[in-house]
């Protein structure tokens, strides 16, 4: 059918093919019959209708045969689905965090990433964690989908990829303004390659290489962490205030119900990221932005600040 790259594909596609084959047969047969009747029995060709009595045996036939057919379909659907519900004990464990409107993935050794990196031919068990509203974790090529429900802590799904490559990962549960931009990728690597990636701890510390352009890295962070889904870089008003012409200006905020003015500086940005609801930018709603405590390090924020400076008026 379409691109398939996990162990579930066969079961799902078998059910698909069975149901579609039956459907096409039924659709074509009945439609053919209707067209034939229109041609054969229209009132020019057949001016007088023949009245026909009901037949209980015919009614029973076309009740009972379809029951068996749908039972068959039910069975195939069940068989293709049951492995999805039975994750193995052993496997790579990853926590998928979803928030409006980005995914991030956290591995057992502390490594985090905004794409899902996994080894080929190994079970990967995903703990689904939604931080704000419903999202859904969907990888079409793997035939995997499960909603991510805030408050539901033991929700998990799993898969075993069978081919290396890069595949789409979508959020399929409507989650607000930027729902259609909430997507990521799954990168399936050879086991060896994955091991190297996984153990590359320099990525954990996120030490900026000597001489790297801090502002550029900051920009990349805004992109990869999904900040720009709410904060535009070009002055457009999205869910949150734009970054354009913001740095160094005076901002009207509400703190504990009191209006006051603060300067858009290091301190303000750091606090806004770690405790977004402490100062509420006037005209915006609290509770939209979640804290990035633990997800962005002080160094990350430093890079973001470097970038924000380049947007100063």
């Amino acid at each position, binding site marked *: *059918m379409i691109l398939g790259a996990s162990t*579930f594909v066969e079961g*799902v596609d078998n*059910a*698909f093919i069975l*149901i579609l084959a*039956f*459907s096409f047969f*039924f*659709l074509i047969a*009945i439609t053919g019959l*209707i067209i034939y*009747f*229109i041609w054969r*029995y*229209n*009132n020019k060709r057949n001016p*007088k*209708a023949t009245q*026909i009595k*009901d037949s209980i045996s015919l*009614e029973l036939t*076309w*009740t009972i045969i*379809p*029951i068996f057919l*749908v*039972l068959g*379909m*039910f069975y*195939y*659907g*069940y*068989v*293709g*689905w049951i492995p*999805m519900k039975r994750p193995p004990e052993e496997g790579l464990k990853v926590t998928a965090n979803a928030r409006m409107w980005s995914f991030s993935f956290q591995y057992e050794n502390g490594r985090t990433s905004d794409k899902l990196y996994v080894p080929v031919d190994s079970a990967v068990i995903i703990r689904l964690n939604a931080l704000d509203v*419903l999202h859904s974790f*969907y990888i*079409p090529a793997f*035939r995997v*989908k499960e909603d991510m*429900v*805030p*408050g*539901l802590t033991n929700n998990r799904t799993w898969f075993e990829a069978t081919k290396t490559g890069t595949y789409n990962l979508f*959020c*399929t*549960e*409507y*989650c*607000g*303004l*930027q*729902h*259609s*931009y909430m*997507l990521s990728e799954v990168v399936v690597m050879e086991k060896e390659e994955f091991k190297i990636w996984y153990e590359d701890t320099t990525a954990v510390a996120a030490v900026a290489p000597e001489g790297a352009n801090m502002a550029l890295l900051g920009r990349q962070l805004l992109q990869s962490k999904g900040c720009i889904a709410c904060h535009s870089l070009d002055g457009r008003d999205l869910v949150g205030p734009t970054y354009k012409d913001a740095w160094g200006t005076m901002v009207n905020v509400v703190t504990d119900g009191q209006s006051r003015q603060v300067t858009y500086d290091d301190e303000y940005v750091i606090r806004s990221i770690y405790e977004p609801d402490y100062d509420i930018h006037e005209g915006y709603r609290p*509770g*939209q932005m979640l804290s990035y405590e633990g997800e962005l390090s002080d160094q990350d924020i430093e890079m973001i600040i470097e970038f924000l400076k380049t947007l100063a008026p």
Partner: protein
Amino acid sequence: MSETNTTNQHVSFLKYQGKYKGLLGWILSTDHKRVGLLYLYTMLVFFSTAAILGLLMKLELIAPGMTIMGPQTYNAMFTVHGIIMIFIIVVPGLPAVFGNFFLPLMIGAKDVAFPRLNLLSWWVYVIGILTVLSSQFIGGWPDTGWTFYAPYSFRTPVNILPALFGAFILGFSSILTGINFIVTMHRMRCPGMTWFKMPLFPWTLYATAWIQVLATPVIGITLLLTVMERVMGVGIFNPAMGGDPILYQHLFWIYSHPAVYIMILPGMGVISEILPVFSRKRIYGYKAIVLSSLAIAFVGYFVWGHHMFTSGMSGRALYAFSFLTFLVAIPSAIKVFNWVSTMYKGSLNLQTPFYWAVSFIFVFMIGGLTGLVLGSLATNVHVHDTHFVVAHFHFIVFGGTGFSFMAALHYWFPKMFGRMYDRTWANTGWVIFFSGFLTLYLPMFYLGILGMPRRYYDYLPEFHGGNIISSLGAIAMIAGILIVFVNLIRSSRHGEKVTEKNPWGGRTLEWQTDTPPTLENWETEPTVTEQPYEYK
């Protein structure tokens, strides 16, 4: 009615002059036929509005990136499109318009059991609509989708209370109509009309009315709880306050799945009226059709979980939901077999209502068969919440209810207005509409199988091809709708006059009264001796 004088009894209900004149004579009339037309006109306005929103959405999707609107507008549009189409058009739809107009005529009654309550239902309906529309002025259009899923519905910056409250009020209108119809059918059938001599459209209204009365309160409670949660923060659905968002989905679908049958059953009834008349042949399997309607109404209560296979809901309940979903397909299949058999050896009169009716069977089969894909656990996981679902329910709700509504309109039009529409334009409109419909929705199945999620303002380039075709289909379909509507509206005033009682040669009672019917429908009460579709 005490104030009617004898001369008025021979005047068409359209011309009849009671206590009030002009517009008041309509919006205060308790005549079931006028109430039916009030619903028809209201729906015409809102259907057109929501259809235009649909067209704008398809235009937005014709190319990736921003085309004609921003994401907030788009999200509000699909929400308002859904709310109008579901709560204002399709759920009340056929019962409110054709049920009101034709149920009393078809069972030989003078009116429904409670004419004043009937008028009240229309008023409640209008108040519900105005409440929904008031959201524009109090906090902006809702952007949650018509399903109002928690907890997004508590976090969205826009005010969704008017929409929730409006849907709640619309539910009341639906319950009142349901009660009215049930009592009418129990108490007011004319002499000789036993239950199994009642025509099939009233039968489906009967099954529908029970769903309206029994299921609608659940959505009422759910919407009210959501309002309470949003206003007072009671913490039932919102996980931030210890609530359970999956509970919301259960409650929502406990109503909204049976509601699908509220939408489709009367449509099936209409098709069961039209096919025998245009085949000059008794309906095949009258009892099988009646029983399958009741079976659908009953089993339909127990399948709501098929909307939630990937919701994170746990446990074995999922198998049962899948299994019952497959079973509920059977009664629909039985109907299709009986309809097609009705045409066998008939003498088919190929007129516009017949074309709408057979195309109904075709699109309904596609809707039903793709429902099997969604009912099966493994395949549901892949296509749930993608464009596949959007295509599927448009085939059922728009293909099913919409096509049967058009069929009904073209079938009963001469009786309702005493005029005939232009048949060439009617057929042209049908051809364009039908091909536009297929071009619009068939590619969505393909997009869904490729993995394109629903409620998507923007998409990856790989989904572009299907979307272009689909958007072009939308333009064609809207052109078809326009032709059909203009033809009907024009003909209702200027069409060729019909005075014949029975232009199509129908056998049911509505064809034995004057065209258009007089105020009290009958000069002498009709009696019935045989089955409704006994062609000789």
